[in-house]
């Protein structure tokens, strides 16, 4: 018989699923084990052992046991490190934080450790809690996550003629091919939307920019719309599905934000 091993790690709660009458299956993003699924026995009834700890995007410290890497973990204990109250008291911030963890969930295979993704989530949730919400922060999060997950789109040169991005040129983004083409190579149809070199440059800048500087970036409406269309189009293509939390975020924005 192989024994159960006990582990301890920091982890963000991604989401929870009811399991049977009393249990929860919780998906975490942990710093030491990447995406991790565990069962919390009696979590729905127990006010003591698991008092309100499995709320989305909370940072927790968990202790779990499991027989092997591909077995469901058994959550022994879970303690809150940060509930991100400043996010929870703001509707838009709650929706953006939900979108961040939704993306991390979609782009992370189970059991693959990636400390940089954990750090990314940590940094951007902290930023979100402290600063005003901005489109730039959302787009830069997407750029960085895509890169860390190995899906970085090519934005620094035309994917056909390899000419580096130059000011004043119009570009077209091709999700299927994972990058931009210059107007000469793209042969755009009339309904294709061009994007400006400014948008491309902003996204390139955003993926490496110091986290403290992000709050200073204010995207103009056209820049915000162009960069949204590129990245959401690309993410939807890579995942071959719509990201639900983004749809809800945009629905709420249209309604009342």
């Amino acid at each position: 018989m192989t024994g159960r091993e006990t582990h301890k790690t920091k982890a963000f709660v991604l989401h929870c699923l009811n399991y049977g009458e009393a249990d929860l299956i919780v998906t975490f993003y942990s710093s030491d084990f990447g995406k991790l699924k565990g069962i919390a026995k009696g979590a729905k009834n127990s006010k003591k052992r698991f008092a309100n700890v499995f709320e989305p995007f909370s940072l927790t410290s968990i202790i779990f046991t499991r027989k092997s890497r591909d077995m469901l973990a058994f959550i022994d204990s879970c303690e809150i490190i940060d509930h991100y109250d400043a996010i929870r008291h703001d509707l838009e911030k709650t929706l953006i934080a939900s979108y961040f963890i939704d993306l991390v969930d979609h782009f992370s295979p189970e059991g693959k450790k990636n400390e940089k993704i954990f750090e990314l989530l940590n940094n951007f949730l902290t930023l979100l809690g402290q600063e005003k919400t901005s489109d730039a922060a959302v787009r830069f999060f997407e750029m960085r996550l895509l890169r860390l997950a190995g899906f970085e789109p090519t934005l620094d040169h035309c994917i056909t003629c390899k000419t580096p991005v130059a000011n004043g040129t119009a570009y077209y983004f091709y999700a299927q091919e994972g990058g931009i083409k210059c107007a000469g190579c793209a042969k755009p149809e009339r309904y294709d939307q061009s994007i400006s070199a400014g948008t491309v440059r902003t996204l390139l800048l955003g993926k490496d920019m110091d986290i403290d500087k992000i709050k200073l970036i204010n995207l103009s409406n056209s820049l915000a719309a162009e960069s949204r269309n590129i990245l959401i189009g690309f993410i939807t293509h890579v995942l071959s599905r719509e990201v639900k939390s983004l749809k809800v975020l945009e629905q709420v924005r249209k309604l009342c934000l």
Partner: protein
Amino acid sequence: MKAYAQPIKRLISELAKLPGIGEKTAARLANYILRATEDDVCKLAESMVEVKRKIKLCRICLNPTEEDICYICHDKTRDQEVICVVEEPDALAAIEESGGFRGLYHVLHGALAPLDGIGPDNLRLSELLLRINNGHIREIIIATNPNVHGEATALLITRMLKEKDIKLTRIATGVPMGGDLKYIDKMTISKSLEFRRGM
């Protein structure tokens, strides 16, 4: 499941769709049904169909009822100018049982849950707005659950109603963060209504 005859398999898989029922529990229930008298089984089946056929949502507050308008909305001794907004009928039931509230309700039939794709369009918010626009509402008490989804829903309603001249309050969360109203005792619910705070 392989070992079961086809009709039993079907019953188990139908039962396993119910909330909180895993395959093991479903098999246990199926076994009970198998051993019960035909009369008992018919009563169970009929009661399920009857619920589906007879129960509709109250035209005013959307609480499940046999009538067009539920007994709460019918009761003229209740304060018609105060609406308590809840996520689900079971929260309404819990508040009613606490006895601490004498106004009307509005059931949203859900809460904002971005990760499950549940947005404002999936909640019964337009009915609430209609009630507010057509009536003399003095106060809206938001009694959504004290967890992320309920909190986000409360913030959403606050945003939607901020232009209106209505007092907006939220139940006091002596109710711990992460809780669900239906699991909370009567005393705590009464207190949380009494000590509600402005939004």
